[in-house]
């Protein structure tokens, strides 16, 4: 079996002319590969192997892949952790995959319709919630809940990209003027309350947070979330204006390092901003977030580049 796989792997590689690699866009992974897999379980991609991610450790996955140099692609069935629950079982023999960041919507580049969702996970050794973080990263792509291709089956196919965030990766990312690891760190906290998280019970997750990440006792999470929803559109406008106008020479210099493609610009610019007050009231969530974000322009720069990086596969 193993030797057969090796021969097949070698055969596949030889069929490609030099310089060609499997670098699918998020949209291609969902619209072509995932849709075909859901329609026909026997569908096999030239570069995507079937694998049970619950029975494989991440370091075993590269040898099970059909193709790939620094990232590997798999089809996998995701089963529920409980018969009637909505949480997915992500444990392996030696550890578990933990979600990081927010789920990202993937759109059809021609029709702009939503085709699926992308989730980023990091592998932890040991048992939750005291696992040890590793450098193995997974992007999981699934159809969105209202897709016409979705069936009523409990088991659902997903397509995954697995890669190892190595020193070489860090060096590459650094020269691209962005920091993926920081991006993940920032989003770890946000993922607890992500609207894409199907978990309706917040408190059980919050109890697992380390002490310094516990919400302030006086805060009412439900009310705050509602307030966020109400003001989100307005805040987005304020943040755009705030960030663009607070850009100073050091930020402009940083921009010179940016080589990420931008397919379109849709900016809503405001006028000159007053300097936000250094001390703000905790009760006024909207004002606090606005003024805080205005002071953290540098972070915004980094964040945007992280997001761009995910969608771009430049030559190595």
């Amino acid at each position, binding site marked *: 079996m193993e030797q057969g796989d090796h021969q097949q792997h070698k055969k596949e590689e030889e069929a490609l002319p030099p310089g060609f690699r499997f670098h699918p866009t998020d949209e291609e992974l969902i619209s072509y590969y995932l849709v075909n897999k859901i329609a026909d379980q026997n569908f096999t991609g030239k570069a995507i192997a079937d694998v049970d991610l619950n029975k494989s450790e991440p370091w075993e996955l590269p040898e099970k892949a059909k193709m790939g140099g620094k990232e590997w692609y798999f089809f996998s069935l995701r089963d529920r952790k409980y018969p009637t629950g909505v949480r997915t079982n992500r444990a392996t023999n030696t550890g578990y995959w933990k979600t990081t960041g927010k789920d990202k919507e993937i759109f059809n580049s021609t029709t702009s319709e939503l085709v699926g969702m992308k989730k980023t996970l990091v592998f932890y050794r040991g048992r939750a919630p005291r696992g040890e973080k590793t450098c193995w990263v997974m992007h999981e792509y699934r159809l969105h809940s209202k897709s016409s291709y979705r069936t009523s089956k409990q088991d659902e196919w997903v397509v995954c990209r697995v890669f190892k965030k190595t020193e070489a990766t860090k060096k590459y990312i650094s020269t691209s003027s962005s920091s993926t690891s920081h991006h993940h760190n920032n*989003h770890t906290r946000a993922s607890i309350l992500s609207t894409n998280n199907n978990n309706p019970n917040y408190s059980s997750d919050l109890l697992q947070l380390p002490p310094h990440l516990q919400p302030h006792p006086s*805060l009412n999470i439900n009310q705050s979330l509602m307030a966020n929803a109400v003001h989100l559109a307005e805040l987005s406008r304020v943040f755009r204006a705030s*960030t663009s106008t607070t850009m100073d020479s050091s930020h402009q210099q940083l921009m010179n390092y940016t080589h990420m493609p931008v397919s379109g610009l849709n900016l809503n610019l405001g*006028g000159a901003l007053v300097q936000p007050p250094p001390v703000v009231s905790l009760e006024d969530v909207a004002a606090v977030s606005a003024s805080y974000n205005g002071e*953290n322009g540098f972070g915004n720069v980094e964040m945007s580049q992280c997001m761009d990086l995910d969608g771009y596969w430049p030559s*190595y």
Partner: protein
Amino acid sequence: MMKSGADLQFPPGFRFHPTDEELVLMYLCRKCASQPIPAPIITELDLYRYDPWDLPDMALYGEKEWYFFSPRDRKYPNGSRPNRAAGTGYWKATGADKPIGRPKPVGIKKALVFYSGKPPNGEKTNWIMHEYRLADVDRSVRKKNSLRLDDWVLCRIYNKKGVIEKRRSDIEDGLKPVTDTCPPESVARLISGSEQAVSPEFTCSNGRLSNALDFPFNYVDAIADNEIVSRLLGGNQMWSTTLDPLVVRQGTF
């Protein structure tokens, strides 16, 4: 924009993303030695006759970057400097040349930027070229009655903003959609509703617009979500933890 040759029928997701070594060893060396090329994806074209925004339409293959085999001419009959005039502008070198190959370099990679207009008053654009030439070639030898410096160099062309702008000025193109989506009424209403964040004055200068062009369009929404939630979870801790990006960023450079 991608055009696929008859021999290049791959399933979705397969792309030409070569390393520098692959470009030099498998494509440029073979081309210069008149040997067969592994795949018909690199167009033969004297790209110095054209502006870079016209080149994608002439390429055999490519989505965001396009590859060409091109000859190079001398600037002067007895010199070895290449003539960089092209179309309605010129290519200007940027950065250091990079040797390709180990232990002895086989090729040399040079990065160039396209400027519209006449030197030295050209206007910088976002079009970039990576030029690969053979390393061990005596370019002082001149053919009779010819300005030819290299029969073939391999060039990768791309726009660093990822869009193909047909006109000379990228800034001019970029400004228009931004202006169209800058309605004074809604901004004014926003200003009056958020006193702590914005000033009563509202101006929309070209300088500010130019700066704004550097930002991707959807960065703020994600950050808004992230910061709001971080605030809820972190309390006062957030001030210290989110200073990390500054430290990390400064360390990187």
